[in-house]
């Protein structure tokens, strides 16, 4: 066991090429998915917080339900969409990194949208009268609030990133865990552990933990600095 940990550390420390390819793809997929989900989720959350439109309650229920959706179910759903017989089959995206980005976007979007909605709603309660008094309309007001609380929204984005980088089910199903093409950290860890190759699994596990820690530390520092600067 100790041996396995040590060789895992060695693998991680010597920047084994195969390992870094896997790490790189993992980051590319998860960061792309989170970027897409942020782009869609923040305006969606703000619209729910500020807007009063028919079907708003339904959107909230669906969003909350989607937050707890198991990744394998999302993977299955995207798989069906992208499979050759599916509605988007012609795009030929199944078992590509793009398919993994789509699956993770679907997975992460509800989290970012729901957390953004709560943050914007709290802020809107404070800002609404003042902004309306100045003559700001709903859409412009939502954007103003989003921008004003942008540093608090880092938390929402991080929660999304946490879910994306930790999940294995969705990328496994739509990516297929193909060596050198769609193999990412979590699918490798699952595979290598079942094969009994603990050093690689452990090495990747440690890299994963280190990356998540570093991202969270960076985000925390940005938030603190912003708080000091803007109050």
């Amino acid at each position, binding site marked *: 066991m100790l041996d396995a940990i040590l060789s895992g550390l060695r693998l991680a420390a010597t920047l084994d090429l195969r390992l870094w390819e896997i790490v790189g793809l993992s980051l590319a997929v998860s960061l792309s998915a989170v970027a897409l989900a942020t782009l869609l989720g923040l305006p969606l959350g703000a619209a729910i917080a500020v807007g009063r439109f028919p079907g708003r309650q339904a959107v909230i229920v669906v969003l909350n339900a989607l937050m707890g959706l198991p990744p394998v179910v999302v993977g299955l759903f995207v798989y069906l969409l992208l499979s050759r017989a599916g509605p988007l089959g012609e795009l030929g995206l199944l078992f590509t990194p793009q398919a993994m980005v789509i699956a993770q976007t679907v997975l992460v979007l509800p989290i970012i949208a729901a957390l953004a909605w709560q943050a914007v709603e709290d802020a809107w309660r404070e*800002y609404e*009268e*003042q902004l309306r*008094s100045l003559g*700001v309309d709903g859409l412009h007001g939502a954007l103003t609030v989003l921008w004003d609380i942008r540093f608090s929204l880092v938390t929402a984005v991080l929660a999304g990133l946490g879910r994306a980088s930790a999940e294995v089910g969705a990328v496994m199903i739509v990516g297929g865990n193909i060596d050198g093409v769609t193999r990412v950290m979590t699918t490798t860890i699952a595979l290598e552990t079942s094969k009994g190759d603990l050093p690689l699994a452990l090495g990747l596990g440690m890299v994963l933990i280190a990356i998540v820690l570093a991202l969270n530390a960076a985000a925390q520092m940005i938030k603190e600095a912003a708080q000091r600067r803007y*109050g």
Partner: protein
Amino acid sequence: MNAILPLRLEEVSFAAGGRVIIERVSLSLEAGPSTIILGANGAGKSVLMRLMHGLLAPTSGRVAWSGEGARRRQAMVFQRPVMLRRSAYANVDYALKVAGVQAAQRDRLATEALEEVGLRQVAQRPARVLSGGEQQRLALARAWALHPEVLFLDEPTANLDPGATREIETIIKAFDAAGTKVVMSTHSLGQARRLGDEVIFLHQGRAAERSAIERFFPHPASPEAAAFVKGELAWA
């Protein structure tokens, strides 16, 4: 100069959650005299001002301005100022931008407004780290930059110490001197006397009395106002 006054309220009522907060208030606000809306806590002062300013829609009755584009020609300063997380200057600039003022004029107007309220030195400081009094002055600068014809102030000094209150009152007088119609709610008799020309006394959602300030204090006409003045003076 004043194109949107008089403001007419016709039988305006407002109810929320089954409670009547404003009951059949009819009045007319003319350009010129500073109007104080006086009353105890819960009398409906804040709601009445929000109805006038258009932040609330009356449950029944009508709020009618005389001129076109009234929305853009009035401003309101709230009890607790709400500042965006940006510099003091940028907060004023934001209000001007929303009002559709050209970029070329915004800088001059914002700088003038900050100068007027004595915040020129802290223009680049983040608005939210300013003191409560400074933030309220910044709220007044934001209104000043817009050169409104009517300025509503909802208990603007309720959270401030006497020094900050004095500074705010000085700025409110400057608005009046510049030709802006001042409509302010307060429960402070001293403030009403210092800033007001006339009083609308609100009691349980009804306009119980309206009279000139020099008449109101020695001789309140309604028993409610008399009781309020007497009660408040006991504490003054």
